[in-house]
């Protein structure tokens, strides 16, 4: 049963990476757990990682096994957005923007209010909106492009610096605050830097205490497997559950039509795929 199951194991699934664990070690652990089932038959198993998470970050991490590794590339090329919750702490600044980094500065934060924070977040979102359009290389003169831009469905389909498609404050109790960030082409370090810059904009300082990915493309927290579930049965079930979604998604991103169907995701995300890909290919002068 084991070896047969293993040989038929192909596809994508998501795990929940706990903080403090390197993604490489996680990948190795999963590989080991799968090989334990039918040891000698398989020496290696192809397990690939999608968008990485650094050691201190946590959250949804997409893995591919067997032929699923190919799908990882496709997912990467779909340039889907990701959701994060980012916790910040007002009052100090460190060299690596983390709470445990070398202290650089300490400031007061009594003057910081929820309104000020919201205002700053709105400014950030606005500036990134502009960048989004710019990096998409979209000819805004077409009607479709205009409509999409109005609805905020444009995003770049090639390399770009980190772009924030949405940011808002979920919780504010100084010195702590919690942000929800929707972004693409990001690194966790840039997200921590974002917290630091928000602190500066608020005329105080801030460090980032937690970066947690809640969604990667269409993989959410609910489907992510915890450490105790990293075994053959659970992974098989997870792959099976994710397969139809994966297929649909990747088909959409390859199809040329202007499909404005939005994907169901928690909250208020606006990452629909498909139409942008064709528009992104246009090499017109971006406006």
């Amino acid at each position, binding site marked *: 049963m084991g070896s047969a199951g293993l040989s038929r194991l192909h596809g994508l699934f998501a795990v*929940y990476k*706990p*903080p*403090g*664990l390197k993604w490489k070690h996680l990948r190795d652990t999963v590989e080991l757990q799968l090989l334990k089932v039918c040891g000698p038959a398989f020496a290696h198993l192809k397990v690939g990682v999608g968008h990485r998470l650094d050691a201190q970050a*946590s959250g949804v991490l997409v893995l591919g096994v067997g032929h699923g590794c190919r799908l990882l590339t496709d997912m990467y090329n779909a340039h889907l957005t990701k959701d994060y919750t980012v916790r910040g702490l007002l009052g100090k600044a460190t060299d690596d923007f983390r709470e445990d980094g070398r202290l650089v500065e300490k400031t007061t934060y009594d003057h910081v209010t929820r309104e000020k924070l919201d205002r700053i977040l709105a400014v950030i979102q606005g500036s990134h909106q502009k960048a989004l359009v710019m990096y998409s290389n979209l000819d805004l003169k077409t009607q479709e492009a205009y409509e999409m831009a109005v609805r905020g469905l444009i995003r770049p389909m090639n390399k770009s610096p980190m772009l924030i498609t949405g940011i808002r404050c979920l919780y504010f109790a100084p010195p702590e605050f919690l942000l929800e960030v929707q972004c693409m082409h990001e690194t966790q370090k840039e997200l921590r830097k974002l917290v630091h810059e928000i602190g500066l904009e608020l005329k105080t300082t801030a460090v980032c205490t937690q970066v*947690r990915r809640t969604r990667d493309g269409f993989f959410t*927290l609910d489907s*992510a497997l*915890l*450490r*105790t579930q990293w075994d053959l049965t659970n992974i098989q079930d997870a792959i099976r559950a994710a397969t139809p979604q994966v297929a649909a998604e990747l088909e959409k991103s390859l199809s040329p039509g202007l499909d404005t169907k939005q994907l169901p995701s928690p909250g208020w995300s606006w990452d629909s795929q498909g139409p942008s890909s064709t528009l992104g290919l246009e090499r017109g002068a971006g406006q």
Partner: protein
Amino acid sequence: MALSAQQIPRWFNSVKLRSLINAAQLTKRFTRPARTLLHGFSAQPQISSDNCFLQWGFKTYRTSSLWNSSQSTSSSSQENNSAQSSLLPSMNEQSQKTQNISSFDSELFLEELDELPPLSPMQPISEEEAIQIIADPPLPPASFTLRDYVDHSETLQKLVLLGVDLSKIEKHPEAANLLLRLDFEKDIKQMLLFLKDVGIEDNQLGAFLTKNHAIFSEDLENLKTRVAYLHSKNFSKADVAQMVRKAPFLLNFSVERLDNRLGFFQKELELSVKKTRDLVVRLPRLLTGSLEPVKENMKVFNTRLFKVKERHLFLTYLGRAQYDPAKPNYISLDKLVSIPDEIFCEEIAKASVQDFEKFLKTL
């Protein structure tokens, strides 16, 4: 030319600065003249060095005084100064000077002593001379503190200069006695050179010796064997230096005991050789300290860190992290780690496994 008989005893005060051994030698040298000259002074050349001090003190009580050597020229004033300041501790140069002068003058002395009439303590002396008598209190034969002996022991003085805290050492009478008896040049110097060789810096020697004064009773060859053993186990020189610094008693343990301890940790914690080495270099007290707490909590050490952390954080989130045995709803460390997840959630956390999983996804 002849020295006044009264002046001879004053000369003895200047030798107070000398070390124990030298003092003993001196008394031996002057046995003959002392017998004839100083009635109160019954010289016993066979006396032991510490007893010597005792008797020395008593005898010099009456006879010690400043020595104005009439025959010495400019050195006389120096002699005066040095004798007057004889009460100041650890003046090596001064004592050297007095030694030099005294030894020089003692040659002269020997010749002239035969001619001098016997001196009696009952002899009346003038007022000026009486004022000039400086009588130190005698050294006690037994004392609670090393303070009484510091002035007279070169060993103790050198140790203080190194930074050793004698107030800690005097609390252990055997160690204090040992230090008094040891000769700095012969024994202690060898030990210090060995420690430097191991890798302890000069400024760290004081702290080390304050903690581990028992190392002086160890055989140097044994110590060298133990260091060689550690090297053979692939501990680098810097590693050994760090371990000895953090756990000063490390080298007092026999090779066998060190080996047993290393083996114990490797086996119980199921570590690789390299990991055991890393662990011991970072925490050498594991080798020297008691194994009781380690054995008691063996299960905890063998549990993965993340497991303990996750469970603890969950309990804290629920407000159930009670680790004080006196208070109700106490959760023992053993229970925290050893029981499986489902039972942990139901019994200890009083929550469902789903809640625990949801919580884990918020970390």
